[in-house]
């Protein structure tokens, strides 16, 4: 109904589209122009994850992907080994030196049993809804792990 009224009064709101496109394009531009920022982020990420598992620092890949109205950071962090089970940690251990860690943000039904050799973290989602809150907090709390 509101949409109809807007149309009726000629408020097609293409400026909102412009604003949104501008926001996204500038995020991408700024990332492209600041490789040191990405390196720093990589370092911090690895530091956090390394508290729980041993990762292959040389083979970490961080990419940014434009989705419809959001920019996502995709980190591919190969895990070398996982510490012996420690009851004080929330991490549920797995027998193999492999773990699937998912942040709470992407808890939309990734297969819980598949245990890929690499961790795929998705963060910094800034969709329209999350625009106000900006990037997700950089907590690397492992939410779930593969269970046999």
């Amino acid at each position, binding site marked *: 109904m509101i949409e109809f009224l807007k149309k009726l009064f*000629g*408020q*097609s*709101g*293409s*400026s*909102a589209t*412009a*604003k949104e*496109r*501008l*926001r996204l*394009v*500038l995020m991408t*531009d700024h990332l492209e*122009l600041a490789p040191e920022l990405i390196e720093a982020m990589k370092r911090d990420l690895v530091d956090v994850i390394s508290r729980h598992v041993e990762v292959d620092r040389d083979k970490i890949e961080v990419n940014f992907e434009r989705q419809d109205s959001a920019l996502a950071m995709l980190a591919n962090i190969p895990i070398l080994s996982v510490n012996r089970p420690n009851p004080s940690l929330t991490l549920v251990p797995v027998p193999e030196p492999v773990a699937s860690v998912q942040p709470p943000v992407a808890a939309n039904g990734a297969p819980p049993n598949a245990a890929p050799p690499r961790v795929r973290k998705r963060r910094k989602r800034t969709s329209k809804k999350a625009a106000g809150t900006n990037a997700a907090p950089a907590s690397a709390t492992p939410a779930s792990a593969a269970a046999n």
Partner: protein
Amino acid sequence: MHQPQTVQEEKEVQSSAPAARLGRAIVLTSGKGGVGKTTTTANLGTALANRGARVVLVDADVGLRNLDIVLGLESRVKHHLLDVLEERVSLDEALVPGKHSESLFLLAAAQSREKDDVETAKMKALISSLRERFDYVLIDCPAGIELGFRNAVAGADEAIVICTPEVAAVRDVDRVVGLLGNRFRPQLVINRLRPNLVKKGKMLSVEDVNAILRLPLLGVIADEPEIIVTTNRGEPLALRKDTPTGAAYHAIAARVAGEDVPAPMPAPAKVTILERVGSLFGGKRA
């Protein structure tokens, strides 16, 4: 008055005296072409000169000389920037006096040369010597961020960035501001705003643009047909202080000069029903 106590101090006072009188070198830039850098340079220069300041406008757009046209001085240009930089003529021979003001001068760009022909160090030295003679040295920067941009920026110590309310223009200004860094303390002029479109949600607003750029706002210029008309005639609109846009350029000039006047902000035109009906029958707006 403070009396110099030593010879050394006296020397220092003497040497610092001319430095205090140095004019301001301001580069007008935008990254993107066609947003109104040249028009803004001409109008801001005209308005500053109108306030009594000694102003020189330097067209740094080598190869695409345009500032002379906007000022209506194209027939008076005999020598250009590169003639001066390459020491073929003196600065005085190359400076073209303005048509409407005794304190406005133009240093035209070379039309038959390329931007890469300009030596950055020489450009810097030229701007320095202009600052000794003028209160304001306004440098009309070419579009782009290559050598032409770097040369235009080289001698400046302040920057005014011109942006239109468009995605591409804002993106380019964002890039240019990143390149300029803090040294130039860039200030923003938003050009070609159409308040009626903003009101309808069809154009980025001043707030939208500056929510991204976050720069001190000097002022906003509306997209008015009279700007085209005055450019056609080679008479900057700033000569006509009685028009809203002319007054807006004067307000920007006052703000550049450090006066605490509000940033000009065009308001949406009130269209009467009669005019609206008239426009249905091919209204007579220019």
